[in-house]
Structures are given as structure tokens and as C-alpha cells.
């Protein structure tokens, strides 16, 4: 009897959870909106900038890959965590910089080119990716070992799929904006990545130089956001005139991790 009661309780509670793979999913309005305004290249401007970390970057811990010899063999030198990756002058990598609002009325069809995510040497590469709503994401396994790809999405369909060495890429697209979907491999618990799904093409993920360049922005006032997995989000409002270029700097405080 207790088994039935617990099972029913669990089923009932599970029904309150997020969307699951295979569940009916209605595309978000932004993904299915009728064709709206298009950007006039003649008046479009540009926002460039840099993301910095204010303060000393935390020392990243070494990853122990002994649990899978195939992973350990893939590296000749110690591998460290990629949560906080900085370049010269404290520039911060793996930050998604995107336009949060100010593009009402515009329509941005999803690019036909897929975004690629690979797992060489039991690490996700790149560590953070950005894709547009509806754009295909392909997850490859170029390793000589097995992986599972677990996308613990809250706004889109959750996914957990295995991938044997040399298997076909996992293809996935998302119907809703979400920043950012954690990607995990539970076979190798150190493997973590993030997928940012955005409703427009005005986003970039910074490299070690912390730089971003959002081109072809129509004139207007926008909220620009920088998101980092540890330091959270930072917003700035900017106004772009016709053919205008503006430079913006985001600075995250090293002592202000999102979880603090």
C-alpha cells in the first residue's frame, strides 16, 4: 500500500516539474511570429566591447580523469576547470553578451547553419555556446569513449541521450529563449557546458580576449546583457543611432559569484 501511495505521490509531484523530452511543446511566440520588420543595412549600427573581471580570478581546480582511462589518455598535461577563464588585463571568456530588449516588431528567422558542440578529451568544446531559437545544435562525440548528453532545460524540453564513440551527432533545437541551459555528462561528472538560446541574432560568446561585436543593429535603445555561469548577469542600456558604433565595457566583480 505504501508503495502505491509513494508512487502516486511521486507521479503527482513529477507532473509539477519542467518540460520533458517528448512532451508537447508549443513554440514560443518569438519563434513562430509572422514576418515583421527587417533590419535596414543602410542605417544599422554596431556595438563592440569587452567583458572584464574586476579582481583576481579564482584559481581553477585540476580535473581528475582517472575514472575513464580514455579521457586521461587524451591529455598530456593537467586539465583544469573552465568556469572562470581570463585573458590578459583581466578579460573574461565564456560570457554571453546579448540584446535582451529593444527589438520589438523585428523578425529574425533561425540560421540554417547548425551550432556545433564537441566533447574532445572528455571536455565540452566550446564551453559555452549560443544559438538562436529554432537553430539546430549538433553535439558530436569525437572521443574514444562513451558520453551522455544531459540538457537540464527549464523552459525547453529536457534531454538525456547516450552517445557511443563515433555515433552520429545529437541534433537539437529549442523553441524558447533560455539563458542558459546547463549541459552535463554524468558519465564524466566534470563535464559541464552551457547553451544560451536567444530570440535574435545579436549575441556573442566572448573568448579569452573578452571581446564582443554585435553588428547590424538597427537604430534604437537596447538593454544589453552579459551573462556568466559564475558571476550571473550585468545589464546596460544603450542607444544606437543610424550607422553609429558604440563601445561598451562590462565588468564583473571577482568576489561577487552568482551563488554568493
Amino acid at each position, binding site marked *: 500500500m505504501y*508503495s502505491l501511495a*509513494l*508512487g502516486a505521490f511521486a507521479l503527482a*509531484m*513529477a507532473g509539477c516539474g519542467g518540460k520533458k523530452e517528448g512532451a508537447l511543446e508549443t513554440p514560443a511566440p518569438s519563434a513562430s511570429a509572422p514576418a515583421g520588420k527587417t533590419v535596414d543595412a543602410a542605417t544599422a549600427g554596431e556595438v563592440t566591447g569587452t567583458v572584464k573581471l574586476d579582481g583576481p580570478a579564482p584559481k581553477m581546480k585540476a580535473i581528475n580523469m582517472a575514472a575513464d582511462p580514455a579521457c586521461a589518455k587524451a591529455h598530456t598535461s593537467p586539465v583544469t576547470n573552465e568556469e572562470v577563464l581570463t585573458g590578459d588585463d583581466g578579460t573574461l571568456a565564456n560570457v554571453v553578451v546579448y540584446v535582451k530588449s529593444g527589438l520589438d516588431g523585428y523578425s529574425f528567422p533561425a540560421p540554417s547553419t547548425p551550432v556545433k558542440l564537441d566533447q574532445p578529451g572528455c571536455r565540452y568544446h566550446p564551453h559555452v555556446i549560443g544559438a538562436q531559437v529554432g537553430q539546430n545544435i549538433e553535439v558530436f562525440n569525437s572521443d574514444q569513449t562513451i558520453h*551522455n548528453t*544531459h540538457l537540464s532545460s527549464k523552459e525547453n524540453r*529536457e534531454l538525456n541521450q547516450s552517445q557511443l564513440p563515433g555515433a552520429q551527432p545529437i541534433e537539437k533545437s529549442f523553441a524558447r529563449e533560455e539563458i542558459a541551459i546547463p549541459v552535463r555528462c554524468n*558519465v564524466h*561528472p566534470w563535464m559541464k557546458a552551457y547553451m544560451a538560446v536567444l530570440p535574435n541574432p545579436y549575441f556573442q560568446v566572448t573568448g579569452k580576449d573578452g571581446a564582443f561585436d554585435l553588428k547590424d543593429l538597427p537604430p534604437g535603445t537596447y538593454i544589453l546583457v552579459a551573462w556568466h555561469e559564475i558571476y550571473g548577469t550585468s545589464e546596460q542600456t544603450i542607444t544606437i543611432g543610424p550607422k553609429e558604433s558604440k563601445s561598451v565595457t562590462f565588468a564583473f566583480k571577482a568576489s561577487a559569484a552568482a551563488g554568493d
Partner: protein
Amino acid sequence: MDTTPNRSLHKYAIFTALSTFFLLIAGALVTSNDAGLSIPDWPLAYGSLVPPMVGGIRYEYIHRVVATFVGLLTIGLATWLWRAEKRVWLRWLGLAALGGVVAQGILGGMTVRMYQPPAVSAAHATLAQLFFSTVIAIAVFTSAWWQNELVEMEDRGAPRVRCLAIWTTVAVFLQLILGAAFRHNGFGIIPHLIGAAIVTILIFLTAGALKRHFSHSRPLRKCARLLRILIGVQLLLGAGAWWSRVYSAQFPQPIAVMVTLTVVHTVTGALVLAAILVTTLVLYRILGVGVGTTMADSDSSATTERIAQ
């Protein structure tokens, strides 16, 4: 149907309980190593019976194998009880254990197929403790001393020691649910800490009552000492497990000290439950449920010594 105690059945029940304890360890290792979703399919593993044994797959697969073994043992236990046991309620308890293990398997599959929703994972962890308690109780009920003719002792405690032990058992079980919910991200730590305080008080009250009212009884003195030791160790382990979780947060993967402390804390919780449950059952057996023959303290000592053998 045979009415004499079945020693083989009792030993089999003990073996099932021990196997279940190892299953609890295997399950706790899965959670602590964050390996619950390392095998995305169920009941098969990567489409086969034996997956590649690397990384988190090892923990999840071993857990599934031990669970299957315990499931088979439980089928045997329920069948044996049904065929050989004269007490109808105990036969049904065997079936309840079988239902529990089947439900537990389904919940395990649900955690995989539904990507570990906290409610399902916590229910899986909770049912594990409930199933363990059921098998422990069956082992107690099938023992020879449980089935011996005993002269009842008197419960002179106020509140009655039996009631105190029952409430302590319930509190420990609820505390294990809170622990499971915390471990599977259903709740924060606060409810579990409050539960720890309540359980500690109740266990010390129960142990104190046992010592005061049954000091002449070596088995009950042992129960009292065991409960005190277990709760003390469990509190230290809980503090250690919490520290290790905070400390390991800066690491990119589960670290050995965190895995060890959280797993030992989890299974010691199961031992606390088993200890208080056995204590309660022993109390019920020797104190009786209703009005029975009361014996002098000097005699009761000998009786309880006999019971424990």
C-alpha cells in the same frame, strides 16, 4: 503448516536485510557521484545488459545489479513466507515488501526516464528506507525469540516507553525523508537540521527511559547504548557531510571526502532507523500490547536476556 520457528527463513531474512543495506550504500554512491543519469536508458543500459564500465556508469550499473539481486531475494522471501509462515499478517508483510521492492524499481526507472525530478528521487530514497525497515522487521518477526512464549513485563515509564520509542521511530523516518529531500534538491538544509535536533532529543529521551526503567535488562541497555552511539556518530557525520559539500563545491567533480562522508552519513541514517525500529519491536514484544502477566524486575532480566538470544 509448521508452527515452530523456521531458522532458515530467519537467516534468509537477515541475508536479505544485509543485502538491502549494501543496496543502500550502492544507491548513496550513485547520488554522491552524481551518476544517476549516466545510463540514460532503463531497464537496459546503453541498449545492452552490460554497458561499458567507465566513469559514473560503474556506480549506476552496480546499483542496478544489486537492486536486481535484492529484488530476487525479496521475491524468494515473500514466497517463502507465503508458503511456510503461519502468521497471516507476516505473510502479508512479505507481500508488502515485495510490493515495495517492485515500486522501488519503478521509481528508479522513473528517476532515469524523467531526469531525476526531486520528488521522484526523494521518493526513491525514502522508499528505500521504508523497504529496509520492512525487511528488518521481517527478520525480527521470524526470529526464534520473537516466537517464544514470553511473560510480559510492565511499562512503567511516563510517557510509556513504547510510545516514546514509536514516536522516535516515526521521527527518524521523517528525518530520513527530509535528508533525502535535501540530498535531491527538494528542500534546503534547515528542515533537515530541525529534524536532526528533534531526533537527537527523542533518541536521548528513549535511551534514557530504557536505562531508567529497564536497567536490569542487558539487551535493552545495549539498545540504549547503541542508539546513543549511533546518533552521536550520525551528528558528527552530518556536520562532516555538510562541510564536505561546501568544500567540494569549488571542485569540478565529486571528491572522495565528500562522497565518503555523504554516503556514510546516509547509510548511518538507515542504521539509526534500524536500531530504533528493532528497539521498538523488542519493547513491544516484551512489554506486550495489552494487559498481561507482570513479572518482578529480577525475573524480567532473565526473560529479556533470553529474548535477545
